[in-house]
């Protein structure tokens, strides 16, 4: 077997091990201390407080962290592949902002009263509209430079947040509170159905993206050259946009705007294992999940009994890691 494939297997195994460790850490830490060795014992005792804490609070949060972290990270990896630029991700392109606006509109106008499923759907629609908008703005002008594209993303974010502030100022205080809380970003979600939707669609996004592993690899050469290799780039890019919007929109609709996951994790993965999408897709997902599980554990324990918004942690860690990586290895700072 090729040396490369063996490396991949080791890498995935190491990531899965890390994931397992973070799961154990996350489940065992919090207000109610459960020691790591007791985790399994607790699960068999259905009447204990620990059992309730685990299954009703920590496990749903953990599942949500996997869905949101994996989804955002994967979405970043996809967008970086399409734009051939390591700086794009749902947050920097304004897609998270668009999704948030979509969800805020749904809350303010009370659409979600009909069914809470409206929330993820409006997040998805908001993300997709923003993504296609940014893309067509950059294509229309005939290949925008990296900087102006990111600038468009930032501007879209501003417009979206201005619109959100407008919505917040005209809405009732009840709605206001739920919007504010959700915008700050948190994995605290009590609706089990929403959590299920999040994890299923995240995993579906992962599987769907794998169908595009080869086209994404070909896109590393640029759209024209990918076409020369027989890839239908137009269709590929559109379908991948839909997948990326799905991942981002749903993550935002349940957990609010959590930035930088999609930027930092795929970047680290690329540094370690290379740029082949066959390995990047899966490992970005797992890496994002690990990152968010750990961030969430810190967020809810560091100033216990209070809780930090998780965006604070990801912003700090993500931003710092990125700055360090960027300043250390200029030569690696190239995609494709």
């Amino acid at each position, binding site marked *: 077997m*090729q040396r490369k494939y063996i490396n991949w297997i080791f890498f995935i195994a190491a990531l899965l091990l890390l994931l397992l460790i973070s799961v154990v850490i996350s489940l065992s830490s919090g207000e109610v201390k459960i020691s790591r060795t007791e985790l399994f014992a607790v699960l068999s005792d259905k009447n204990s407080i620990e059992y309730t804490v685990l299954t009703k609070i920590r496990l749903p949060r953990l599942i949500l962290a996997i869905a949101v972290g994996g989804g955002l990270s994967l979405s970043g990896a996809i967008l970086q592949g399409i734009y051939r630029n390591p700086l794009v991700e749902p947050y920097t392109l304004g897609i998270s902002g668009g999704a948030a606006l979509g969800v805020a509109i749904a809350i303010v106008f009370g659409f979600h009263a009909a069914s809470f499923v409206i929330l993820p759907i409006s997040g998805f629609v908001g993300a997709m509209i923003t993504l296609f908008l940014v893309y067509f703005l950059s294509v229309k002008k005939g290949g925008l430079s990296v900087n102006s594209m990111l600038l468009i993303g930032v501007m879209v974010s501003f417009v979206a947040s201005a619109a959100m502030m407008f919505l917040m100022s005209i809405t009732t205080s009840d709605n206001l509170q739920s919007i504010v809380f959700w915008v700050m970003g948190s994995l605290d979600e009590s609706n089990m159905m929403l959590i299920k939707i999040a994890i299923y669609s995240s995993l579906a996004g992962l599987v769907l993206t794998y169908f595009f592993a080869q086209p994404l690899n070909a896109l*590393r050469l640029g759209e024209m050259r990918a076409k*020369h*290799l*027989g890839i239908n780039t137009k269709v590929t890019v559109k379908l991948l946009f839909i997948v990326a919007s799905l991942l981002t929109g749903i993550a935002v609709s349940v957990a609010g705007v959590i930035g930088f996951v999609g930027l930092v994790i795929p970047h680290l993965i690329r540094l370690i294992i290379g*740029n082949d999408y*066959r390995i990047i897709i899966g490992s970005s997902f797992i890496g994002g999940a690990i990152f968010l599980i750990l961030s969430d554990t810190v967020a809810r324990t560091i100033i216990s009994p209070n809780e930090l918004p998780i965006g604070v942690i990801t912003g700090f860690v993500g931003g710092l890691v990125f700055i360090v990586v960027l300043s250390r290895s200029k030569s690696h700072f*190239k*995609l*494709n």
Partner: protein
Amino acid sequence: MNHFFKIEDFSCGYPGKFVLEDISFEIEKGDFVGIIGPNGSGKTTLFNGISGELETLSGNSKLKGKFIQQMSLKERAQNVAVVTQNIEVGSMTVEEYVLMGRIPYRRQFQFFETKNDFTIANKYMELTGVTPLKYKYMNALSGGEQQLAGIARALTQEPELLLLDEPTSHLDITHQVQILNLIRRLSNELSLTVLMIIHDLNLAGEYCDSLIMMQNGRMRKKGLPHEVLNYKDIEAVYNTVVITRTNPVSGKPVVFLVSEETFGKGE
């Protein structure tokens, strides 16, 4: 008569801006054909038309009796390989890059390369001499080495027709000659059919079996090097004073430029 590659009344381009018109020529298997012409004469547009990057406006192109326009993207990539002028690939090893040439042969959900893919990639890396660079990163290679890797990748597509867009631009004469010798050899040994855009008229005359001269989106002339490279056509197309002679060793035409100053004295 059935030609290997035939273009008939072909027109493509950007309507309203620049359109190629009335292009007709045929190429036989194993021919090494150069396309010459000044900047903006439509050389690259013609390539983009053949490779399917641009939509055909009228006419058709046939490869081995099959309309290229009717081929699927995949089928087209199995038949026509393109090496672009610049190969911008960052952190990807030469081997990874060359293996990309097998993408057109991959089945829908095939995840890994087959043994055959590696065998073919290795064969062409050997042939183009990039095997020692196999594990180097593309962005660490020199321009000439990148072109060689680009050719190896294109050959790995096992195409019927190879399109090369100025493979020797930005290279010193060592690498220019190295690459053109390689293409010449490939054309002879594998009877590979090659269509190459080239700026250097002397290299074009020395290496190509025949030449196509483009002017303002039309084909001005097609023929053997000594038929095309005559001072009348060159002066008309390039708007430059030249004289042509014959290379005493190869017997191929050579074009000399004449500076304004010398030309004035000669009058």
